[in-house]
């Protein structure tokens, strides 16, 4: 060490003085850029917030065939946060429904339907001990643009907390069963939902002007009017539900280590548990997610307990695919063909 430092000193002494000052300056710049600037950037961009995850729907399971005069309809979606709203008229009220394929049917916000007759009111207990109150009502008319429903049974629940989070009036949730008779094109990058009438085979009644070109096609299943698809993480095949009402992807914290070890954790919140334990909610990126042999990147996810959701759906689920999956392109769902296809070109208007 002594030898090398002496050699260094001699060689430096031979050099020009101004070169020495320059070296010093460069050292400081490296120091500032590596130590000071990164920490400031992080301080600005990351503000953990504990009040961030909410879960679960338990809904009526009916299917209603709406009346639509034309062969197809384009419904503009209003985006709020990463939620997508559909304007509707429900009996005498006009307002927004959240487009929510994670809900089974129609759910109405109790705040605005307190005067409606409650036809069933009971509490149900889930496998993990959670108790939820379920009450139903019926509405005479639900109109979404030219799409018209009559005599719909709907669940009633208090959705005030979603209004408060997003600052918009929410009349309810429009679940998957309400539109499952159509071929469904979800283009959240252009905030629009297209519905096409299909025949029994799943072919469009009017196939003219079909601009949708699938880059990927995969089978889908439904259970209790919820869409399920299989995707692979860390070599493990997992059961995901497709949920337009979820602002993020979710992975069950009960997933195997093989799955969880692949997730790059970027944040954590510790939530107060009801019992003797706290509950960890983890945020990260799924590095190793493939669907139909297609690798998906930038798949932000949270990791949390999904027991209550599995219980609500009556199916064991490993995860939820929400906004970060849906924004990869235009998603086409055709239950007649039991198929989900994706066109990855975000700029193409379908």
């Amino acid at each position: 060490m002594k030898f090398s430092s002496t050699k260094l000193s001699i060689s430096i002494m031979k050099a020009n003085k101004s070169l020495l000052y320059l070296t010093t300056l460069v050292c400081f710049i490296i120091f500032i850029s590596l130590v000071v600037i990164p920490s400031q950037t992080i301080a600005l961009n990351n503000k953990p917030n504990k009040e961030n995850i909410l879960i679960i729907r338990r809904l009526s399971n009916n299917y209603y065939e709406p009346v639509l005069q034309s062969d197809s309809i384009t419904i503009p979606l209003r985006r709020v946060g990463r939620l997508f709203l559909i304007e509707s008229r429900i009996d005498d009220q006009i307002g927004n429904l959240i487009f929510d394929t994670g809900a089974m049917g129609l759910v109405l916000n109790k705040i605005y339907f307190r005067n409606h007759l409650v036809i069933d009111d009971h509490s149900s207990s889930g496998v993990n001990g959670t108790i939820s109150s379920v009450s139903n009502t019926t509405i005479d008319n639900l109109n979404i643009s030219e799409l018209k429903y009559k005599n719909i049974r709907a669940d009633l629940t208090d959705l005030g907390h979603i209004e408060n989070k997003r600052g918009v009036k929410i009349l309810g949730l429009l679940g998957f069963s309400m539109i499952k008779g159509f071929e469904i094109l979800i283009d959240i990058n252009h905030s629009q939902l297209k519905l096409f009438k299909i025949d029994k085979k799943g072919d469009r009644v009017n196939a003219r002007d079909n601009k949708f070109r699938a880059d990927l096609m995969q089978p889908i299943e439904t259970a209790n009017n919820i869409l399920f698809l299989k995707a692979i993480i860390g070599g493990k095949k997992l059961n995901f539900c497709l949920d337009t009402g979820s602002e993020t992807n979710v992975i069950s914290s009960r997933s195997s280590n093989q799955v969880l070890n692949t997730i790059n954790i970027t944040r954590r919140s510790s939530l107060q548990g009801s019992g003797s334990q706290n509950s960890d909610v983890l945020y990260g990126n799924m590095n190793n997610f493939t669907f139909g042999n297609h690798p998906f990147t930038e798949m932000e996810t949270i990791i949390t307990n999904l027991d209550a959701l599995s219980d609500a759906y009556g199916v064991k689920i490993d995860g939820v695919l929400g906004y970060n999956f849906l924004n990869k392109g235009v998603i086409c769902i055709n239950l007649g063909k039991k198929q989900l296809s994706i066109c990855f070109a975000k700029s193409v208007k379908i």
Partner: protein
Amino acid sequence: MRPITNYIFILFCLLLPYYGAAQQFDPKKVCRLDNGNIVFKLDKRWNAKQKKEIGKLFDLDSTLLAKAYQGNSEFTLQKDKWSVKKIDQYTFELSKVINSAPVSHVKANDIFIMDDFLNNNYNITLKENTIYGVNSFKDVSLFQYRNHVARFFIPGQKQARSIYLSGSFNNWTTAQLPMQKNDSGWVVNIKIPPGKYLYKYIIDGRWTEDPNNNLYESDGRGGRNSVLYCINHIFQLPEYRHAHKVILSGSFNGFNQSELKMYRTTKGWAIPLYLKEGTYTYKFIIDGNWLADPTNKLTRNDGNGHLNSILGIGEAYTFQLKGYNDSKHVYLAGNFNGWNPKELEMEKTPTGWKLSYILAPGMYEYKFIVKEGHWIVDPDNPYSTGSGNFTNSLVAIKPNHTFVLKQYQNAGIVIVTGSFNNWNPNEYWMNRNKGKWEFPIYLPAGKHTYKFVVDKKWIIDPNNKLFESNDVGSFNSILWIEP
């Protein structure tokens, strides 16, 4: 002695650990999951700020981090059992078993909502603090605004089946404002007050920005919203037609000397502008020379002996104080002028004092200053806020709602509180008037939750059918203010 080389050598030695720490400080590499454990790789070389940042990101509080850095191999904190494992001289791993117990507040029919900070660009609501603006249309004839009626026109689009207008003026409704088809295009009229608005057209279900408008703002998802200003004032300068360039410069744009270029008219120069309600000073810059508005007699000294023109937009509110005829001066001060005690001198009247002042809609606190610095509340205003020496008079300018409670006539104190004032239980005191309690208020558009506090007892509004459950097991009343 080799002072320079010694200096550089010492500098290198000092920087090396920092360089090492900088290499180590990558928050994305701090946390991992390892067979049912959550593991945090921490570094002793991190500075206090970096440690704090990691604490925030991963919800590791300072007590926990202090224990970990002390080198305790195992400890229990707030029900969690933590282990610490040394890796090398600088780094160590802090770990615990992942707790995946069901979360207590999970309720049926909730949905997964992301953190707002991860959602950062989502908000497409209008910034209420926009003070001024000028339109920029490619063809000025396609948008008109007269007598508070805006006329939107889209030429062509003959193939379209329906076109709707949606914007911040109609709460972004997608189905309530259809445009009418005529021979040359689509048209709709909408009555809206002056202001800044964001909008889009919905052509056969597709969101489309206005191709005629050069002004736009990001809609937070890669697209854009068109921006327009419904103007409420035209600045005009007669003559000076020989000038090359005339700029409008005022307190509304920080006396910017190049931004607002006026255009030539048959009589001189003009620029139409939207200005938020309030009081402003301004001047024209004619080929580099500053000039107060020759058509405006109202001027104010700028403090350097120069006169600026004064313009008030909106209706003036008249503050009045009876009596105090023996005072030489009476001043008005409030949160609208930074409580400056010498700025707003009131005029003497036969019965007392008065001052007209233009304020934008909102809630304002004020006091009068009489008899050489004696601050008093307005004796004729029943509405006040605070208590004791900290009581101020309270006025709602252009209130858009009045809270009314018809019951509890025998109560001593009734207060209204809610999300609009951070649930402050001692701010908005209601006034008993003709058999009911009242409180006029100006609230921004959107949802507000509130309660009344009747002699310290919290109740929901018995006359409002809209209410929701809250976090403490009771209910809050709901009020929606339309834009």
